[in-house]
């Protein structure tokens, strides 16, 4: 089957899908930036990404998306030391509560009415703060994110893969892009879980994420172009 052989309406629909996916990738990048740096378009460092998936949740937040609200870098070390020492109530009262009070609870409290209030994640008591001392993404959030990624993105990858198979690009490129997208997807969600137990795995998440996004983006571009033109450099010749 040949995409170019489809009628105009079909090719318009396919083009719309590809453009939507490419647009969505931009906002996926924004979501990654916001969740790691707290900024709409700030580039996260490798360490920041690793911390998000493998680090102590509250420490990761202080190093990442909440960093701009942390008065002093020493505070991050104090909190980290407290968690690694067992997160005792006594040390919380003397060392941690003042830090939370200075930098966090203005927004992270049930009664906050500030513009950026985070009433759903209060940090005003020992129990509330201790709940964020686990490593990696909390299980409840991980379960939701993993299954929704697998269900939603695999369908998107599958549709793009089928469309890619109908293009004129070299077969080996089709195999590479389809494999990259699926491997990236599986690697990503698998490493989210593994990073909770093996910290180093957190460093691999940007690679799998990159693989997924690269695969998706490249497939969308190739399919989009092939709908209307001959994709330069990577297409088979007319008689091949």
């Amino acid at each position, binding site marked *: 089957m040949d995409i170019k052989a489809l009628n105009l309406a079909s090719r318009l629909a396919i083009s719309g899908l590809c453009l939507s996916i490419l647009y969505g990738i931009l906002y996926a990048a924004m979501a990654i930036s916001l969740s790691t740096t707290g900024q709409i378009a700030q*580039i996260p460092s490798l360490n*920041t990404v690793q911390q998000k998936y493998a680090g102590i949740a509250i420490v990761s937040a202080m190093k990442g998306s909440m960093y701009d609200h942390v008065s002093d870098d020493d505070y991050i070390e104090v909190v980290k030391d407290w968690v690694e020492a067992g997160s005792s109530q006594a040390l919380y009262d003397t060392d941690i509560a003042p830090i939370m*009070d200075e930098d966090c609870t*203005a927004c992270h409290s049930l009664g906050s009415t*500030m513009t950026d209030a985070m009433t759903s994640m209060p940090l005003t008591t020992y129990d509330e703060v201790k709940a964020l001392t686990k490593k990696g993404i909390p299980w409840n959030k991980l379960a939701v994110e993993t299954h929704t990624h697998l269900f939603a993105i695999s369908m998107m990858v599958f549709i793009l893969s089928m469309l890619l198979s109908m293009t004129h690009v070299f077969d080996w490129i089709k195999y590479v892009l389809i494999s990259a997208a699926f491997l990236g997807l599986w690697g990503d969600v698998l490493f989210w879980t593994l990073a909770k137990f093996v910290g180093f795995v957190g460093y691999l998440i940007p690679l799998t994420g*990159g693989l997924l996004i690269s695969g998706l983006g490249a497939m969308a571009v190739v399919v989009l172009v092939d709908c209307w033109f001959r994709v330069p450099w990577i297409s088979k010749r007319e008689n091949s």
Partner: protein
Amino acid sequence: MRLPLSFLSIAISAVLFTPSTFAKVVGTLNNVETDASILIDGVVDTAWSVAPILKVNINKIPYQPNNGYEGIKQTTYTIQSMRKQGDIYFLIQWDDPTESVNRFPWMQQADGSWQQLMNKDDTGHDNTYYEDKMAILWNINLKSFKKKGCAAACHMAKDGMQKGIADKAPGRKYTKAGTTIDMWHWKGVRSNPVGQADDQYIHDNTDPKANKNWGRSGDAKTGGGYNNNVKDGQPMFVQTDLTNESVVVLDAKKMPLDSSWQQTNRIPGIVTAPFTGSRGDLTAKGVWSNGMWTLEIRRAMVTIGNKSSIQDVQFTDLSKAYDFGVSVFDNSQINHVYHDGVLQMRFK
């Protein structure tokens, strides 16, 4: 053949491996030198045309009054700065659809008595009968200000408690021990009619018994200032040229209210005179027109006074950046529109 993939790989690698920028400087104001004449009158002189404009989108508020808040929650704020012969000048403009200069006025009732209008929320603060204000905070020596800006001094109460003390105010301003912030607080009613901004500062006090405003105080003064125009439940002073539109009673013109007063049925809630001493360091004039305040401020680059080193930012080193933050109060006693992060001023 592999060009598109290579491009994507490079772009994605750049996104994932480039280190973050940790500074949170959200804007830089470049101060320039001038010889031109600048009048502090709230009117934009031609001299300002050479001063670079810093535009700041301020869009955060600290609390929601329980009896409603009709003020702005976002505004565009521009600031320019020049220096001339030992003085520093600022031109500031911000959008505000309404001019609010009706702070706790007295209104005469049908039976001839006087009632002071106010509509305070459950924290004891007014957002109805108040005044427009603008504040600039200049860091003096608070380390966290360099990163968090004004938020470094802002401490919101939790469950009605501030530092373990019952306090119904939604938040307080104070600093870490031994540090201060200079606060330039222009007030549409209390300071503007006498051509000043209120020169205040933020310090480390957290004992309301020592200072009811916690860490916020006026600079040292030798005279002048504003007072509530009240005595025995009615206005205390009027002045001969008072009208129903008068913003304040000027101290220099004040005279006691007597029962025969019929010139107006509204009397301002404030009597004011220019501050003298360090608190009067800031010459300022704001004019509201067509939905925008235009405010000019002048101050000596280096102030004198026995506490000026802890109460005033001193523009002594023209090679360094000066950290500051801005906020706007729209007819509100304490609710204000502010921005995250810090602004910097550099001398060119």
